[in-house]
């Protein structure tokens, strides 16, 4: 199977290269794989994830996602790549002045789908994350767990090629956490979506085979 993500001697740094976070990392992730990235706080897990959607550029080495070399990619190509990604954040990053339904269909709106399609998809996705009764509410009217489920529904809206999740269950109760893991497992299993999750702890009950990378002392190592 082809590589969806390919990093070669990747170095990521802040402050104009002076503060190195990841150094000389090489790894490949194939289509349909479920990957956990763990590591202590401040080790660079979120930085690595940001580099995968082009928020941070590589200082050295190369990083190719979906066939696009992010080091040299133009802004337009990067935007296009992001439309094929589903990104989930620990702080949800929902638009507070939009309803839950509108938040969920954001990727469809960006892709230019008609309002009818958006409405149909919003109902389907919200039913999927068990929030169909909250479609017309605003994010701040929901609990943290519910907001994260909206975030997951948004990430799944356009059947993305890759899902990138940054501590998706970090602040959630067990019920919401289980719903979210189920949703991501289903996406990986049924749609062959590549899922990359940054987390402190791999969930104890997880049915799919997965790969596990750990970030330590600026290096990215696979745990076998």
């Amino acid at each position, binding site marked *: 199977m082809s590589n969806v993500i390919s990093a070669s001697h990747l170095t990521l740094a802040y402050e104009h290269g002076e503060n190195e976070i990841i150094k000389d990392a090489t790894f490949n992730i194939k289509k349909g794989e479920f990957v956990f990235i763990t590591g202590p706080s401040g080790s660079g897990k979120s930085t690595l994830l940001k580099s995968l*959607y082009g*928020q941070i550029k590589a200082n050295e080495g190369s990083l190719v996602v979906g066939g696009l070399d992010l080091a040299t990619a133009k802004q*337009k190509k*990067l*935007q*296009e*790549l*992001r*439309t094929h*990604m589903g*990104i989930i954040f620990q702080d949800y*990053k*929902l*638009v*507070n*002045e*939009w309803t839950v339904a509108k938040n969920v269909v*954001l*990727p469809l709106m*960006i892709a230019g789908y008609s309002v009818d399609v958006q409405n149909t998809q919003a109902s389907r996705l919200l039913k999927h994350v068990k929030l169909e009764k909250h479609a017309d509410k605003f994010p701040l009217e929901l609990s943290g767990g519910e907001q994260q489920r909206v975030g997951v529904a*948004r990430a799944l809206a356009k059947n993305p090629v890759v899902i990138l999740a940054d501590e998706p269950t970090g602040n959630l109760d067990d019920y919401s956490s289980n719903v979210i893991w189920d949703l991501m497992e289903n996406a990986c299993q049924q749609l062959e979506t590549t899922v990359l999750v940054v987390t402190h702890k791999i969930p104890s009950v997880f049915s799919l085979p997965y790969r596990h990378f750990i970030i330590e002392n600026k290096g990215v190592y696979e745990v076998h």
Partner: protein
Amino acid sequence: MKFIKNHLMFILPLMAILLGVEFYLVFDRTTDSYEQGLKDGYSMLVVTQKPVSLEKLQSLNKHVSSSVKIKRETIVKEIAKGVSESSTQEILTSLPHFYTVRLDAYIATSELDEIKENLESDTAIKSVETFGSSYSSSYRLFSFIKLSLKIFIGFMGLVSLLLIIKQMEIWRFTHLQRMQVMEIFGAPLMLRSGILFRVAIIDALLATLFTSIFFVYIKFVWATHSGIDIMRQNQDELFRISDIMMLLLVALVIVIIAVTTVVWTSKGVEE
């Protein structure tokens, strides 16, 4: 309530700028006709030893637009009452030539002195009387009024601009989250900023409309009943249909610059 407040916070300073622009246009038009009156009412007296042509005077200074010779016989008739015919003839031959000279513009006092100097540099011209003191006081008063209005408009524009910058910060704060989330999901710049552009353009249209209504009221209601002659005489100059286009253009330019600045400074996701 919050919605109205948010709009008013941009519409009001924008209106202040538009009022300034329109006041400037109106003042410029009304003072043009006043300036024309001052210019037409002014002339200088040139005394020469022998007759001089208009071309000659114009070659000495480009501001000379016309010259009229004053009949010496009329002057002599006035000053030589009861004097014999032969003496009158003698006075007439020894009297210099007098010209009323008009200028092509209402110019500064310093330029008036320069004209006097230029004309007197010719040996045929004996003297030039510019009536500088009365000219100077009219000119200074006129210049003072013009300058005061420009300073007032400039100051009003500056304060309004500061208020608009403040509103830009509010826009940035309220639209940042949405624009950044949309950026993460790959929305192009125009889609991310579309809502802000729509809001700002609506504000620009409203500000233009309110300013136009204000001036239409001044023109058709206030000026008619004001009892001020200069207002009634210049009623047509107070507001023109073409001014609406000018106000709209100014409002849109301000809005586009403001929104573009907000959009560009909101690029990149803050953590």
